């Protein structure tokens, strides 16, 4: 190709067309009060907040009256709590990595090469929700090789299957919002291989979908009780259930903190995603 030294051959500003009208600064609109929506929001908030407040009050209330944060200090020293937390964290991380490694290329492949198979994929990925967890865990335990039965990775594998419906739907809607075929072909025509295309082009544009899939996976792992209990692993939900009942305030507090932590993580991830989107839109 010839050198580009001829410079601004086409740099005539008169030929540059203007951005879309909807790119113009958004004028501040007068906020309208939607009473219906506000009422629903208040009712929903009460539905969530009142039990939460009651449980927290129960956990932190002193028998003599008033509140104390002293039960918080008891959590870390509660027998088995830290190991349960560590196990749940490990499982969440492993599950998230494996389910993403499995599902991202699969869903991309289905969208690109087998679009007719999407309906079948939806049905297949919803099966883990339909099949009762107990039937599931017994089946997996029976069929797993003996070396894997004593490993926490077996539980992670089960969680990968359980997370599939949520991850598939998040990715499916994320990919549906992209002109996938054109982006992939543009990337490949520029010399990028498949892995590079997924990593550099698709994953950044699926950020919201991946975020929501990750949050759902973490929430699922931190909240799953049945299979972990049947498989004899003391994850956080199992610990809450099995912990000595001489101090039920601590158990309740842990449950509430787990709930709160999930909400905080969810909020953080959504906020991070929004701020990144906003930054990327600033020129």
């Amino acid at each position: 190709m010839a050198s580009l030294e001829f410079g601004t051959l086409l740099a005539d500003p008169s030929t540059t067309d203007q951005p879309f009208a909807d790119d113009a600064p958004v004028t501040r609109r007068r906020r309208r009060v939607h009473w219906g929506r506000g009422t629903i929001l208040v009712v929903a908030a009460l539905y969530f907040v009142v039990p939460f407040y009651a449980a927290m009050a129960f956990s932190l209330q002193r028998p003599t009256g008033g509140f104390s944060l002293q039960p918080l200090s008891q959590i870390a020293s509660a027998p088995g709590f830290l190991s349960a937390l560590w196990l749940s964290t490990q499982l969440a991380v492993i599950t998230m990595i494996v389910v993403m490694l499995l599902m991202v290329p699969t869903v991309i492949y289905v969208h690109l090469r087998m679009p007719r198979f999407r309906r079948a994929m939806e049905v297949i990925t919803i099966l883990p929700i339909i099949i009762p967890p107990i039937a599931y865990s017994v089946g997996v335990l029976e069929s797993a090789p003996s070396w894997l039965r004593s490993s926490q990775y077996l539980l992670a594998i089960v969680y990968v299957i359980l997370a599939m419906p949520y991850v598939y739907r998040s990715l499916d809607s994320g990919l549906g919002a992209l002109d996938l075929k054109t982006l992939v072909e543009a990337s490949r025509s520029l010399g990028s291989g498949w892995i590079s295309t997924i990593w550099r082009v698709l994953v950044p544009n699926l950020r919201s979908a991946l975020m929501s899939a990750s949050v759902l996976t973490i929430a699922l792992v931190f909240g799953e009780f049945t299979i972990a209990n049947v498989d004899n692993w003391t994850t956080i939900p199992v610990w809450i259930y099995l912990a000595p009942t001489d101090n039920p305030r601590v158990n309740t507090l842990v449950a509430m903190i787990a709930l709160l932590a999930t909400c905080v993580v969810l909020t953080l991830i959504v906020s991070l995603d929004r701020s990144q989107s906003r930054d990327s839109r600033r020129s």
Partner: protein
Amino acid sequence: MAMATDTPTNVETRGASPSGAPVVFDNLTRRFGATTALDRLSLDIAPGELVALLGPSGCGKTTALRVLAGFDRPDLGRVLVDGNDVSHVPAQRRDMGMVFQSYSLFPNMNARDNVAFGLQIRHQRTAQRRAKAAELLELVGLGEHVTKYPHQLSGGQQQRVALARALAIEPRVLLLDEPLSALDAKVRAELRDQIRALQQRLAITTVFVTHDQEEAMSMADRVCVMFQGRVEQVATPSVLYSQPATPFVGRFVGVSSRVAVTRRGDHVEVLGRDVPIRGDLAAVPAGELEALLRPEDLDVTVNPNGLGVVTHRSFLGATTRVGVGIAGANLRVDVRSAQADDLELGTRVDVSVNARDVLVTTRQPSS
């Protein structure tokens, strides 16, 4: 159907050394189930030449481009680039820049990063690739938009960034897949001229797919008209217009009217005048015939006793296109607008043929 070809344009005459690679479609066949998208397609493209693949929807032009790009593989035949068979080379190793019909910029990257993407893949240093991206964006007139994201750019600007991105990798062949079709008319005309100017400056071999004959005729060195997966004719725009090799090309390219004719040896009688038959007489089909006439092949004069009646008129600027109903045919005739005042609707007129010869084909049912 016979294929007609012209010699590839000599790009040296444009004052720039051709830096693109020659491209050969060698007997390409591609089938999708029962549909044959490419039917033994053969085409030679010279280095630095811009060839437009023109045809109606489903004629196989996009399939041909996708086979060249490496997004599809032929069932039979070969694609040669610079003399090498690339039929089985993956798209990412073909060094071809492509601009797509739909906006294909990566939404997560600004204009500069989009342009620099191919260079990043080629492990160029950050400073180098940024400098080159800025240079290319300047070249396409977007030097002040380097940090803008795709959603902050108009359609025309996005396509110009896509063009800069395709050029950044210094491709052996530039592929344009209807890049202007999503743009409004004014931007389309501007960008059309810009792409052509840039292509001529860089003397890069370019294959341009379009269904818009005006685009093809105004931009291309040669136009390849395709129909049902086959090449109907490859020629310069002027030859294609003035000497269509097949009835399909005659009907598809430009505007033409069909008139029932009677053959008399090597002539046909058209509107009362004997006119020589164009092309190979042996190829003229037997049976009922019709002639294809361009608007400028006909003259119209007002005559109160004439056989024709003006049925419609369209002002086109310097010329006015007049529709004349005569002997069961609807003829379209171009007259100078200054002389069209007398040709009101319902005016009786005479129509005569001024062409040196005419293209003759089998009479279509509607004529």
